[in-house]
């Protein structure tokens, strides 16, 4: 197996991983937009908007925390591999 093929394969996989992370964010943001839309509908119709707002206050942060944890793990993994190249046998 030659190395150029390997690196290009790595690049493709890395892009795919990036895409999956952004997919999570798109999902989370879509949910937030959906919930905000429902709140605006309930405000328009004056149909107990308080309940909707209360639920959104719990739901939206939960989804965003989940996406942030995933991003944190992904970024954390990759930050490390770069610094590892600089000082192998560091610790």
């Amino acid at each position, binding site marked *: *197996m030659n190395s150029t093929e390997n690196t290009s*394969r790595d690049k493709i*996989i*890395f892009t*795919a*991983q990036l895409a999956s992370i952004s997919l999570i964010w798109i*999902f989370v943001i879509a*949910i937030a937009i*959906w*919930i905000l*839309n*429902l*709140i605006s*509908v*309930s405000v328009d119709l004056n*149909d*107990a908007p308080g*309940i*909707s707002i209360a*639920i*959104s206050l719990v*739901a939206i942060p*939960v*989804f965003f*925390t*989940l996406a942030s*944890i*995933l991003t*944190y*793990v*992904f970024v*954390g*993994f*990759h*930050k*490390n*591999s770069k*610094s*590892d190249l600089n000082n192998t046998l560091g*610790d």
Partner: protein
Amino acid sequence: MTEEKTKTIDIDEALYRPIYETGRGFYLTVGILLMIILFAAFMYVRQVYYGLGVTGMNQPVTWGFYIVNFVFFIGISHAGTLISAILRLSKAEWRRPITRMAEVITAIVLAIGGLHPIIDLGRPDRVLNIFTAGRLQSPLLWDVTSITAYFTASTVYLYLPMIPDIAKLRDRGGKLTRFYDFLSWGWQGTDHQKKVLNRAINILMVMVIPIAVSVHTVISYIFSMTLQPGWHSTIFGPYFVVGAIFSGIAALLIVMIAFRKVFHLENYLKLIHFQYLSTLLLIMSLLWFYFTFSEYLTGIFGAEPHEMDVILYKFTGPYAIFFWSMVVFNFIIPVIVLSFKKFKTIKGILFASITVVIGMWLERLNIVIPSLANPRMELGSGMYFPSLTEWSLFVGAIAVFVLGYVLFSKFFPIISIWEIEEGREESIKEVEKRVKSYLPGPAETSD
């Protein structure tokens, strides 16, 4: 690459074997399950084509098997993430071979359970109306939100602790290296990566517990937010959560016993694991009985006429057989089997777990149908007989669960390999240190 593959004969080889060796049994199981699922899918398409008339539902029993199974499956899903999070949080060392299996149950069953309300819809083509015209004020939408949150959280919670194992599979090479490479997110096992992963798992396990509790509480709200007799009860939230954990542990035990047998994991899943978990099952059984007793005693003592109609329908009416077998399956059998060491063998535990799963399904049936069958208005009580469509979709849902599990075990190790390794290397020292820290130190000498 090939060199590497032959070289790595791990001590945990037994855990890799199911992934690399595919027997005739695997294809046979998948084939049979696919046939069942195809039949169920056909029945569902038929239902969409003709309308919900092909089910046994009617007026006033407007909800049937689909909602019963919805509550049941979501209940089973509490096995996983919740139990695994609690065990991780309490640093129970015996959790190591169990957590992965538990988490997989959650991810698969939650997807199945979450689909049930859609199967139940009269107009599944309009389900997207909940995005454009949804009412977040309706308990059904609370459910959509909390189940989505729980599904996301439990999938993440299943995935993150799997990353080191996926990296192991990647390093072994083989046909699916690229797939594993993609999923392993560049895991090299460096100290920094371990720190990041551990921190993420710690945050998640704290987060996932309230989400799991909220899911079944909200499902109970679907019922308790209405004014119907037998449903309109404040105890429903915790009652459903307890029942969910109860049925979840039973399902987990069944799955563990099945995989132990099929994959020959006797070395990993020892009798002690089953005994510890079944003690938990026993506690939940007693708790379940306590809740059931309180719920019905309040109803009987107050004797509000509509409430009594429902209770009598369950105690002596057409649902007496289901009600009393529920009590036998959920309380009498598990308590007898699990209280005596003599019966606490693998077979005994399997028997008790199966009765609990059946009993908890009956409990959901006893909650959904009798309240609907006894409307407050003087219309007489209704009756409900599930049709072939409902039965086949029920069997189909179970088949999807088994298939999902079998496929998962084909691609990923069913027991967390790195956590077992970590246990071997570190936990004895760690536990020793921990226990020492609990113990009283040398007595202080008084001056």
